[in-house]
């Protein structure tokens, strides 16, 4: 059942991963997970492990790339970074999201309520 919810959300989640990477620059999985929890104020609190298949999918689509590096604590970790295709995809998805959000917003605005 959770699978189905994720499916509905998938495009949105992609947008979140990509945007996070754009803001933070190259980052390892743990950093991405932490960042998302902070920004979403723990509302979006998944098992952190579920991040990895999603990252793999983005990588397979060549929106992000990965390479091994050293973390701030000098631990070996895999760093993900946005590619050019990823930036383009992010721009497209962000625009799409803004349009939808604006549209939903218009529906929810007081004026729309009166018209009903």
């Amino acid at each position, binding site marked *: 059942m959770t699978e189905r919810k994720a499916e509905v959300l998938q495009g949105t989640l992609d947008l979140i991963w990509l945007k996070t990477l754009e803001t933070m620059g190259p980052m390892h999985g743990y950093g991405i*997970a932490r960042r998302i929890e902070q920004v979403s104020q723990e509302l979006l609190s998944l098992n952190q492990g*579920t991040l990895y*298949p999603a990252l793999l999918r983005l990588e397979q689509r060549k929106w992000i790339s990965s390479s091994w590096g050293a973390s701030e604590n000098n631990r070996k970790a895999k760093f993900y970074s946005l590619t050019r295709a990823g930036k383009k995809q992010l721009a497209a998805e962000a625009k799409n999201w803004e349009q939808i959000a604006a549209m939903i917003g218009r529906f929810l605005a007081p004026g729309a309520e009166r018209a009903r």
Partner: protein
Amino acid sequence: MLIAWMNEIGARVKGLFLRRERDAEFDAELRAHFEMLVEDYRARRIGEAEARRMAHVRLGGAQQIKEAHREQRGLPMLDTLWQDLRYGFRQLRGSPGFTVVAVLTIALGIGVNAGIFSILDALALRPIVVGARQTVVSFYPIFQGKRHRNVHGSSSMFSYPEYEAYRDQNHVFSGLAGYVPFVEATVGGERPAQINGTLASCNYFDVLNERPVLGRGFVEADCATAGASAVVVVSNECWQNELGADPEIVGKTISLNHTALTIVGVAPAGFEGTEIAPSAFWAPITMQRELVPDLININDADLSWMSVLGSLRPGVSLEQVRAELAVITARTQVKYPGTMKVSVQKAMLFNRPEERGIILTVGAVVLCAVGLVLLIACANIANLLLARAAARRREIAVRLAMGASRGRLIRQLLTGSILLALIGGTLGTLISFVSFDGLVRIVIAHLPPGAPPFALHLAPDARVLAYSLLLTVLTGIAFGLAPALQSSREDVNTALKDEGGDAARRSARTGKLRNVLVSGQVAVCMILLLAAGLLLRGLYKAQTIDPGFEMKGLDSVTFRLVRQGYTEAQAAALHQQMRERLAALPGVDGVAEARNIPLGDEHWQTEAQVPGGANRQVSYNRVSPDFFAMMGIPIVRGRDFTDGDVQSSARVVIVTEAVAREFWPGEDPLGKSLMSFGEGNPLLEVVGVAKDAQVDHLGEGHPNFLYFPTDLKGESQDDFIVRSTLGDAATLDEIQSAMHALDPQLSFVAARVEDNVSNFRAFSRIVVAASGTLAGLALLLAAIGVYGLVSYAVSRRIREIGIRMALGADGRDVMKLIFGQALRPVVIGALIGVVCCAGVSRIFSSLLFGVSPLDPIAFVLVPAFLICVAGLACYVPARRAMRVDPMVALRYE
């Protein structure tokens, strides 16, 4: 987005490799993540053990994450397929007995189907290959609307002028060959022999890219002038068998139909023309008048008698050919504009629509029949699978309880079934490829002597393979689907809790499915058995049918003088001498003449009409005055023909009762007028009515038939019927030596008139033998199915039977119980089968010799027989139940 998708798929394919390395890499990544989490918690001053525990919770189940990652990495469909296949293999290896039985059953079913399909493929689906693996194009005319057309052979053929127009005006073929197949010729020499050959355009071997291995072959000049170039190319076979494989054969002469032809070539080995009858020689088409001085006028633009084959120019499509030929057709058919179209296709063994129609229809019926046998076999395997599923229900329940989805289970079980089908199907297809060519040869070698020569080379091609594969997969689904659905519907709780509790309800459900399967089997088997039974009745009718004329003591002498190369004058003289010789033979007390011998292999048809009435198709014969008396066909009204009719070419006709009824219902036909052989011909006067007799086709009732008197002009075409008191063998010997003494070069056939009937019966015998074998196979399979059903039911109910017997039931009661339950699906199936067969039996009414397609004898005896066999199949396992010792049965688990 599309690019992203393609990238993903590409990456997933790559992900199928180096699994271990990728697993290790992800392990490391995940471990790093875990350690960072732990560090984080430690930094918040949480104890080591608690930090690790919280990190585990935060991260989630490592195994699930790894599995999800793995699934994202590769192609999970392929992975599960591979798993399922391995599982299937293990299952099959685990029960070798079942596997062997199932594989052999499937192999038999698929093998027969693939073999039959490969015959159909060779006849009408596979493009013929000539030269160096080259296909050629064939086309034929289709006529529509009102126009005149002479036909020699089939209307779907061209005239020589038409062929020339297509050959010279097209830009799509690198060459277009024309030919006339099935030209019979008598080879002169010590013992005259009949061979079959081809009249061909002189570019024939170049177009087909089959250049002679000896000699120059034809050159253009050979076809330049009619009758000028007496040359011939012989087949390798003919060269080996008739000409002693003489290496110096080129330049020598051979006598065909009394015409001396110079051999200019020997065709490559294995090339025997492009028709079903192998061609022994090819002569230039311009030698037609010398070789076949029939009624053919080579310059007749409205005569159908030639087939054409073209080799395409490189890069030309069939569409272009169609367009081009349509233009040429429109340009050349000026006399009857718009009445001819041309149909174009890759050349096959049979191209003409009338032949293809018959072959494809018969092929479809036969394929259906063998498909039905396969279906019965499927039901047996499905039953075996159901029994096995019952034994495996605990395993399946465990897997369902562990979280396997139902779809996944069904997919796995189906994969196993298809795997089983593939093993059997491959085996069967291989066996059919190896054996069917030989089988066909054996059948061809055992055809009745009157059958036309033909050769059929089966060669498995992609089409046959695809058909076998499709059938195999369908088979796997057919026998696997129901058991898979059934066993995945397991109720986990009850299945895991105990064996006994819910088993009864469950087995009732499976039992219902098994009953349905057996009903289906019996129904299908019934259809095949009934068909075989009807055909058998037809054969019996054919053996005993009264054709309505006398055959005892009658012999026929058939020949084609003009076609053998005698001139008209020679033929007339020879014919006269033959009649005198025959009449003078000892024991002979009558000689009659007829254009064709009753039930012979020539059938003449024309149209006839009452003046002002509608045209009707009629068959006819030309007969001499004593014909009716000799054949014992009574003239029921009016008079017989007289010598005067023959001498004066009188315009008279004798009609049959059937014609009288149809043309002049309720009126006296005598003295009435009849118009025949097209409009504008003088009217014929009906002088007599002959009793109906089956002189044209045996067992086809009484179609319209007319008798015309022989005429002096075409007399030499008439065959003789000789009545003798000497006995057949002696008379035939007499005839042989008398004819040979008259002209040693004459080729003729002397045979009993009765032999013609056996040609009809032979065909019917072959059909009965084939359908009987098939029905027998079906019966055997269905009997095994019933036996299996009852055995299984008995074994499941041993305990119940034991209780009943302990409570006082005796053997008879138990027997009644078992029989009652087992025979119900059989009877239901039998009824369905009878109804289905009654619905379709009309399609082979032409093979029934007048037996009704709903023949009551067949429809009573065959079901009774089937029920008896089913009863026997029940009885054997039921007897075991009767002998059950209650004490043993009650303890039975």
